[in-house]
């Protein structure tokens, strides 16, 4: 298993714990520092920061997995067509991906969210479309390089069908690591989108539902006395990004 998936799995386990945002409000205990009972203290409304950081992971994990599935499913399919057949098919697919890539990712995700609704489904679809060119071009390049490889010629000579060569030998054996890498990068991209939209307002996750983006925005706007109220979600964002998108944002 790719070691970079491990932090995400731990995060998913934490995010699955039950959390009731309204029940967590405690006006009698605002801005408390870290303690044994509240590992990261409380925010301006007396809410447990640690539990909100865990619960806030849902805001990007669920749409992130959705976006990775959408982009991966479509991208592998289109990339396989382009890489295997080449020629005009590759030209058409590359042209469509070029048009999609020309729209800035935030603008594209925003447009899709406005058209379909600003919820996790809209974010997943928007981010998935923004990530689609990277998946498609990565798979197409890999297959384009491998389709004339000696092992492919040998497999054909042994009577193995083109479909089996494409699906098993090329896509499963030689491309799945690339697809997993791109899927992780997509989850990271959704995290960046979610934090950005929460900061900008309107289309992000709205209070009281926790998300790392609205936790940072709320802590900075209210001037929360407990610095962990914004340090913790910022650290969570940076650690998650380093696990999902090593080397910076995808181009």
């Amino acid at each position: 298993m790719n070691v970079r998936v491990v932090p995400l799995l731990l995060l998913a386990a934490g995010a699955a714990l039950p959390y009731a945002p309204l029940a967590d409000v405690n006006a009698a205990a605002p801005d408390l520092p870290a303690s044994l009972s509240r590992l990261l203290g409380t925010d301006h409304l007396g809410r447990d920061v640690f539990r909100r950081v865990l619960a806030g992971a849902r805001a990007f994990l669920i749409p992130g997995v959705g976006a990775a599935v959408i982009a991966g499913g479509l991208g592998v399919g289109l990339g396989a067509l382009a890489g295997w057949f080449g020629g005009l098919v590759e030209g058409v697919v590359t042209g469509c991906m070029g048009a999609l890539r020309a729209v800035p990712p935030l603008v594209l995700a925003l447009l899709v969210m406005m058209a379909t609704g600003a919820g996790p489904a809209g974010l997943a679809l928007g981010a998935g479309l923004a990530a689609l060119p990277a998946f498609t071009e990565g798979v197409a390049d890999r297959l384009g390089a491998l389709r004339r490889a000696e092992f492919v010629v040998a497999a054909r000579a042994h009577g193995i069908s083109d479909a089996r060569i494409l699906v098993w030998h090329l896509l499963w054996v030689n491309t799945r690591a690339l697809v997993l890498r791109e899927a992780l990068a997509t989850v990271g991209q959704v995290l960046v989108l979610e934090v950005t939209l929460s900061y900008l307002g309107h289309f992000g996750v709205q209070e009281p539902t926790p998300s790392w983006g609205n936790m940072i925005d709320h802590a900075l706007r209210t001037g929360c006395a407990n610095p962990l109220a914004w340090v913790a979600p910022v650290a969570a964002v940076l650690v998650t990004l380093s696990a999902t998108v090593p080397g910076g944002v995808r181009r």
Partner: protein
Amino acid sequence: MRLLLRALALRALTFVATTAGAVLVVTALFSAVPGDAIDALPNGPELRSQLEAEWGLAGGFGERLADALPRAARLDFGHSLTVSPGAPVLPLAASAAGRSAALLLPAAALALLAGFLGAAFAGDGAERPVGAWRRLLVRAVAALSAVPAVLAALAVVNGVNAGTWSLMEAGRVERPAWFALPESDHAVRSALAVLVLAGASASLLWMLRRAGDSLTQLGQETFVVAERARGGPLVPLYLRHLAAPAARLGAAQAPALLSALIVVERAFGMPGAGSLFWESCGLRDWPLAVGLAVVAAVTATSARFVADAVAVIVDPREREALS
């Protein structure tokens, strides 16, 4: 010459097709958005029947798309409805884009320069070994650039304000002219915005790696090896043959820079296409938002076209590959 013109014509055709595709995507998505500018007005429900006819907002997705596409092809995006009521969209979008260019172009140039200089300093593309600490230093600095633009902008604005306030309270400094961000319109604010745009989300680490690959590849070319053996000047050779990779890297980061522009302009309170786009989305001024999104897409495809054209002009192998 014929080969060059043919190659440029092919690239221009690709540019036109890609731009048309991007405009189609943007227009189709906007046509699918439910609700309109009338919803944003306080007395919208009372005025709906009148304004729908006046503003041309009646009709479902198909009708709106059928109306929007031919107008988009003529670069007619109509008039702003709620942000600047009655103002034609194209001049509004163009002037906002001009203000944003003052951030974008320096940021792109800075990111490219930092990437190539960093790669050269770290020893990428050099034959002699360099110290490990040099590589580590450059990569550590570049890894900081993996911070998303939104967090970097917030950190810079809040950090600079808090730090300056502390110094002012301790009596160490007088109140600077640019204090406090982002309210003040000052060169310092613009400079910080350019730095954040260039560094964060433009990903210096990504630029560093790609620049390093380009330097390495160029250093191994036979004509460079021959020139080195002759003892001839390498700098003009490198400058000429790095023009195409640099242009391509710049074009590749254009969409991400345009995305980050929205955040940076909002965080630093700077007027431009990014903050105007966000405002128009919030007020459901779809004609203005479409116009701005189209300007952004055309900017990205134009950057790509310029990069391809530079590659074709500088490198004869690109021309021959297209023939």
